């Protein structure tokens, strides 16, 4: 059966987030009154609104065909991987190492074949970041990998 999956899943996710936020706010924060609103008032109001809006988006999508967008899973994994490698790798690997590895991972999904340009790019970007951020802007970051 044809369904508008992006709207259906998107709407349901919004509704779920709204319900969770409103529930959490009701359980943990004081609602107060209209005159003296507590910290829970605004989040609860928004959460309930979001549930309603999510359902308005999701329910009509049940009985409607929609275009299925293409999820580029490989790109997502490589890009997020590159960011996380940089974030967690900066201290053990140093700025040069973390940049080189992160650029290498980021180029995996690129359409252009070959590995020489990937290595060249990773070296070039490392040199550039070290020169600009470490020498130029004087950011206090370890540049080289930490020796054991």
């Amino acid at each position, binding site marked *: 059966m044809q369904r508008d999956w992006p709207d259906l899943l998107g709407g349901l996710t919004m509704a779920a987030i*709204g319900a969770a936020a409103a529930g959490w706010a009701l359980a943990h924060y004081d609602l107060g009154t209209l005159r003296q609103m507590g910290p829970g008032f605004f989040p609860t109001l928004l959460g309930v609104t979001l549930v309603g809006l999510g359902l308005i988006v999701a329910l009509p999508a049940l009985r409607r065909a929609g275009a299925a967008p293409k999820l*580029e899973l490989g790109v997502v994994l490589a890009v997020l991987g590159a960011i*996380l490698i940089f974030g967690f790798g900066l201290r053990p690997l140093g700025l040069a190492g973390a940049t080189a590895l992160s650029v290498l991972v980021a180029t995996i999904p690129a359409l252009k074949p070959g590995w020489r340009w990937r290595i060249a790019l990773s070296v070039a970007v490392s040199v550039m970041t070290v020169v600009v951020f470490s020498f130029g802007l004087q950011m206090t970051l370890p540049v080289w990998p930490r020796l054991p």
Partner: protein
Amino acid sequence: MTTWEGLLFGLGFALQPEVLVYCLLGVVLGTFVGVLPGIGAMAAISLLLPITYYITPEAALIMLAGVYYGAQYGGAVASILLRLPGTPQSAVTTLDGYPMARDGRAGVALFTAMVTSFAGSVFGIVVLVMLAGWLSRAAVAFGSADYAAMMILGLVAASTIGTSRPAKGFAMVALGLLLGCVGTDVNSGVQRFTFGQTELLDGINLVALAMGLFGVAEVIANVRDPDRQKVTERLGLRSLMPMWDDLRRMFWPTLRGSALGSFFGALPGTGSTLSSFLSYSMERRIARQPERFGKGAIEGVAGPEAANNAAAITAFAPTLTLGIPGDPIMALMLGALVIHGVQPGPMMLEARPEMFWGLVASFGIGNLLLLILNLPLIGIWVAMLRIPFHLMYPAILVFICLGVLSVRGLTFDVVAVAGIGLAGYLLTLAKFSPALLLLGFVLGPLIETNLRRAFLISRGDPMVFLERPIAAGFVMAICALLVLSLWQAWRRRADDSA
């Protein structure tokens, strides 16, 4: 301070070498990202946010504003040469700009875009100066209820105007408002939605949110974009020269576009993208030969390009004098100021004249720089279109990480950028607007504070929103927008079933 004194004072400020450098940096970078399809002003401004920590708030605002209006100039280049809008604001320019290029008149189309952009900006600056003085005097009468109602009007307008699915827009705004609640509640000191993470005590980091939503998500969406078309145009200065007939045809559309853009730019929730679309449809409607449109009519380039630049300038009026950003880009500007502890409002013209008048003067200087630099340098910008994306995006990712780290030095923020980037990509895939989420995020705390104060003053009586004339006006506008969008949805459904 009179207007002339203010302008002179502003010129004195903006012409200081250090400020001038940031202005130049902003407009050049803006043109660059505007030229490149797939990277917009939002991403560029997000990427620059960390740098603004290290410079004065005035210089930061001047630089970020330069990126914004610089991108409007650059956006036309890819629209005309490749039929790919470099920025959403220049999407309409493809309609007649690209056919002009196919006719061998690419140079004239680019000249038209640059010159009308400049004219629109100058018009916008004049309107901004008049409007800002008037708004900051009017704002003295504004109470909490009026502010809250106006901000809600902005959110409603941004999610309903120019979209076929207002419910999705509203959902994004609501989600943004909710994310704005994260952190320590200013009124009670209660920590909301922090889940014991000390990193979240100050709320979600604006830099991480903006970079994730616009930097990372746009990179993911563009990595496997089929190879860009090759630009084959050779553009010398001579090819830019328009004929007398072109100049005659440009004149009135430019003026009408500037006026239209100045008006819609200053309204909450309607920005420069809408202005350029409205200008195009107006020019086509009043043209003597509407059949020329879509086949290379110079009026179809002149009007919209003037309109989007005028709107980009006047959008600063409500942002600076009321502290209310009308669109997501203004929300980022406001965010950048708040990072510096500057809260724009009615007192700003008096209390920080160098901020307002310096910015106004920098608009003039920056636009002049763009006009002088871009016409001779057009060949360089066209060459930029030949840089393959796969050589740029890995470096962009590293800059995003370093930019986020430079703010607080927390690995937590890098992880947050990755997560927010994923969310932003999924939202774009499902056609939910991340820009509206950001608008809600920035306005959230302001709306909550003003709502609470309004109800406290009125002793919990909601009639305060109808008894105060200003608030009542905004409430009526909100209702009108809601009724209009319901009616449009109903009519669409009737069309579908017919």
